[in-house]
């Protein structure tokens, strides 16, 4: 599904200064697998997500990324989305005045167009979204509000899950999907993600805390420190981290 080879990446700030963040990431994710990437603040987890999605000012300086055989680094963000990549944002963005349903319809049909599929008409779309919103256990009134405008933190995160359910990505990356959520909201988000799990879809969970992984059980856990993956293991690695913290790994890297 996803192959990352020796990825080095930098962030460019407004003054065009570049700051190297990722120092040789290697990652192999098979179809159907859920990988958790854990690490302390500033370790480069979110940078990795943004580089994968092709955000401006996040530049891969070395290495390669393939998603289902496609060379992601040559694609625009919208082309990466069409290739099956979905990023659930840590801070979902508000788009005032743009109806949530209208936005989703434009997104679904834009992706279908990229994929040379016929666009959904209003009726088909409505049928689909009504089913999905039930699945996400959200109120239909969400659809008639402007995208994320005035949404609570939990509503925003759930709206991301709704979008994910609608767009059915091959690879979903969830950046801090659990941040700022109470336990009920966390469970709902986890249910949404779990309902998407199948043998063809891969998921990357980026998270600080082990808490989310109680609800979404990962196949593989990676520890990221200072732009490198320093250890990979099974789900028990997350528990170990919870117990011991990151200091042991940080000391390893700096030593």
């Amino acid at each position: 599904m996803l192959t990352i080879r020796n990825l080095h990446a930098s962030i460019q700030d407004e003054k065009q200064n570049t700051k190297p963040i990722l120092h040789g990431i290697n990652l192999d994710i098979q179809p159907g697998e859920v990988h958790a990437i854990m690490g302390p603040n500033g370790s480069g987890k979110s940078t990795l997500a943004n580089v994968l999605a092709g955000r401006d000012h996040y530049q891969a300086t070395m290495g390669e990324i393939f998603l289902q055989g496609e060379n992601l680094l040559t694609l625009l963000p919208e082309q990466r989305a069409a290739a099956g990549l979905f990023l659930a944002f840590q801070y979902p963005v508000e788009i005032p005045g743009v109806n949530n349903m209208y936005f989703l319809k434009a997104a679904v049909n834009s992706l279908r167009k990229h994929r040379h599929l016929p666009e959904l008409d209003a009726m088909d779309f409505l049928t689909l979204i009504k089913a999905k919103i039930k699945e996400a256990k959200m109120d239909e009134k969400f659809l008639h509000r402007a995208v994320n405008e005035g949404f609570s933190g939990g509503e925003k995160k759930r709206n991301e899950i709704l979008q994910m359910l609608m767009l059915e990505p091959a690879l979903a990356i969830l950046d801090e999907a659990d941040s700022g959520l109470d336990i009920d909201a966390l469970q709902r988000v986890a249910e949404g993600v779990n309902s998407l799990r199948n043998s063809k879809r891969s998921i990357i969970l980026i998270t600080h805390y082990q808490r989310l992984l109680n609800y979404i059980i990962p196949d593989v856990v990676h520890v990221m420190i200072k732009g490198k993956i320093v250890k990979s293991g099974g789900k028990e690695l997350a528990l170990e981290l919870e117990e011991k913290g990151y200091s042991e790994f940080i000391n390893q890297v700096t030593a």
Partner: protein
Amino acid sequence: MSNQYIKQVVNQQYPYGFVTDIETDTFAPGLSPHVISQISKRKNEPEFMLAWRLRAYEHWLTLTPPKWAHLQYPEIDYQKIIYYSAPKVKKPGPNSLEEVDPTLIETYNKLGIPLHEQARLAGVAVDAVFDSVSVATTFKEKLAEKGVIFCSFSEAVKNHPELIEKYLGTVVSFRDNFFAALNAAVFTDGSFVYIPKGVRCPMELSTYFRINAANTGQFERTLIIADEDSHVSYLEGCTAPMRDENQLHAAVVELVALQKAEIKYSTVQNWYPGDAEGRGGIFNFVTKRGACRGKQSKISWTQIETGSAITWKYPSVILQGDDSVGEFYSVALTNHRQQADTGTKMIHIGKNTRSTIISKGISAGFGQNTYRGLVRVAPTALHARNYTQCDSLLLSKTCGAHTFPEIDVKNKTAHIEHEAATSRISEDQLFYCRQRGLTVENAVSMIVNGFCKQVFNELPMEFAVEAQKLLEVSLEGSVG
């Protein structure tokens, strides 16, 4: 990087820039009492009209052009302008569509305004003004059944002089300002609407203005009278050919709403804006004002201003009648070197009068966008209310947005609210949309449309669609 994309999106061509080759009856440039009498004579006007024009002219001579607006443009030489240009017709005026020159019909078809019967399907009655004269008014008969008068201004002067004499200049006096005086002296045509008591106009009325001839000023005048308890929705559209020199458009619109009457006036203004370097384009100096004379009357202005090199325009409402309502919804877009100084005046005189102002300014390229508003509450206006919201969206680092709101309250019971915000399309918003599969083009137009939504919601359906498309076209390459 994203700025480059916005640039691409905002750079498309003005599609209405063609010139129609047609024989015209055109005066030599210049303005004098003689020219004014000639105009009046061409129009077979009654004596009172010529006298009024000449008084306006005398007054105009005492005035100087207003300098207070946030606009920069070269001095206009009023002696170089042609004040009358009309397509040549064998007879004094077209009596039916069959008599209208086919070239004209073709021009309007190109502009997407069907003058023929298909217009009825759209439910819109159209009056079309080509340069200085009105060439055709559709659906006159159907409207006549209801007693609605919808015709060119010239016809109204001929057939309903009593209404003209009673209402002309009563909302916008020729003493009002420089351009209103000039218009009164030389206006050549325009539209006239009268809705009788208790009648709800069965269709949207629409006027389409087109400037074709070179060096010609267009001075039209529109007068709409809604008698007691009547209702009318009126649409106005404008285009002009692409020319390197500037052309002057100085119109006057007067609305009168009597007791319980309602007038909804929507404009999609797409005069030629000039090229990317600011060559050419229309100078649009327009005075629009409505008077809510009767109790519980309502006047609502909605404008989408995307064209013109210069826009100077403040559609206003005088709220005389108790419980009357005034509204102003505006989207003004300036791109390249366009400049707009636009807004409204809400003058509260009657008791319990209410007004709403929603202004959305979008600036791109080197565009300068100014909101200028006045909310005045007279001592008589007990419990007047106003809500104003003016928002600016900046699409480049070289554009400007300016706000000059003036609030003048002389009654303690008034309740006035004013909100304002300035924003940009953020990189976050663009990336978010693109991550969901939208192209930059779609993302920018979606965000801009979202910004304008409150105003678009006020437009009649068919205009709302046109307005959205127009924004996409007008957002030509300008962010950097």
